[in-house]
C-alpha cells in the first residue's frame, strides 16, 4: 500500500461512542500490521471528510451512506474486539483486490 489508509469512526457528535470505536479499530489495524490513520467524526460533517472507509453504528449507517463516497461498515457491538477485528479484516481483504 502506497499511502496510509484513512479510517474514520463516526458517531452522532464524534466525541463519545466513536472514541470507543476508534480505540478498537486502532488495536485491530495494529494486529494486522497495517499503518492507518484512525480518526473520529460526527454524522453531519464526517461523511464528507475524505477517507478510505467509515465504521459506524447500524442506526447512523443510512445517513452516513447517503453522503459518503467510501465503503461504510456497520459495527453492532462497539466493545467487542472480535467483531471489529473481523470487519477490519473484511475491509483489508476487499481493499487488496482493488
Amino acid at each position, binding site marked *: 500500500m502506497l499511502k496510509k489508509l484513512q479510517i474514520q469512526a463516526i458517531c452522532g*457528535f*464524534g466525541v463519545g461512542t466513536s472514541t470507543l470505536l476508534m480505540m478498537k479499530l486502532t488495536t485491530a489495524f495494529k494486529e494486522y500490521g497495517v499503518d492507518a490513520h484512525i480518526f473520529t467524526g460526527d454524522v453531519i460533517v464526517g461523511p464528507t471528510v475524505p477517507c478510505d472507509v467509515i465504521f459506524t453504528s447500524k442506526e447512523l449507517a443510512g445517513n452516513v451512506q447517503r453522503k459518503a463516497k467510501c465503503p461504510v461498515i456497520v459495527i453492532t457491538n462497539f466493545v467487542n474486539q472480535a467483531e471489529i477485528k473481523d470487519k477490519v479484516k473484511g475491509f483489508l481483504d476487499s481493499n487488496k483486490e482493488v
Partner: protein
Amino acid sequence: MEEIIIRENIRIERQKAKWQEAIKIAGNLLLKNGSITESYINEMIHTVLEFGPYIVIAPGMAIAHAAPSASVLRDDISLVVFKDPVYFDSQNDPVKLLFAFSASKKEQHLEQLVKLSTLLSEEETVQALEESNTEEEVYKLVNSLVM
C-alpha cells in the same frame, strides 16, 4: 490516580423506567454534582430522538450523551445499573448499564471514556457490574483498573 467514575455518580436503580426516564436518572447525577445544566439532559434525550438508539453500543449497554455545548460545565461520567432493564428499541436491548457523559470540548476525548472502554471489553466485569446490588460494589468494579 483519578477515578473513572466517582462514587456520587453511581446509582443502582430498581424501579422500572422508560428510556427517557432512564436518561434523566443518569443525567441527574451529573446535574447534582454540577457537571451539566438541566438542558443537557434534554439534549441527551433529543440525541436519541434525532439519531435513533445508536447510543446502545453493545448488548445491555448504553452511553447517553449530547454534543459539547454551553450546557456542559465539565467533563464527567455517571453510571446507573438498572435491575429492571430498559428498552431503547435497539438490537442491543435491553439495557442494564446506562452511562451518561458530558464532554466540554469536541477535540478532546475523555480519558475516562478510554479507560472505560477497556473495562467494558471484559465480559466478566460487565456481568459483575450487571449483577451488582450496591453502589459500593459498582464503584469498586468500575475503578478496579485505576486503583
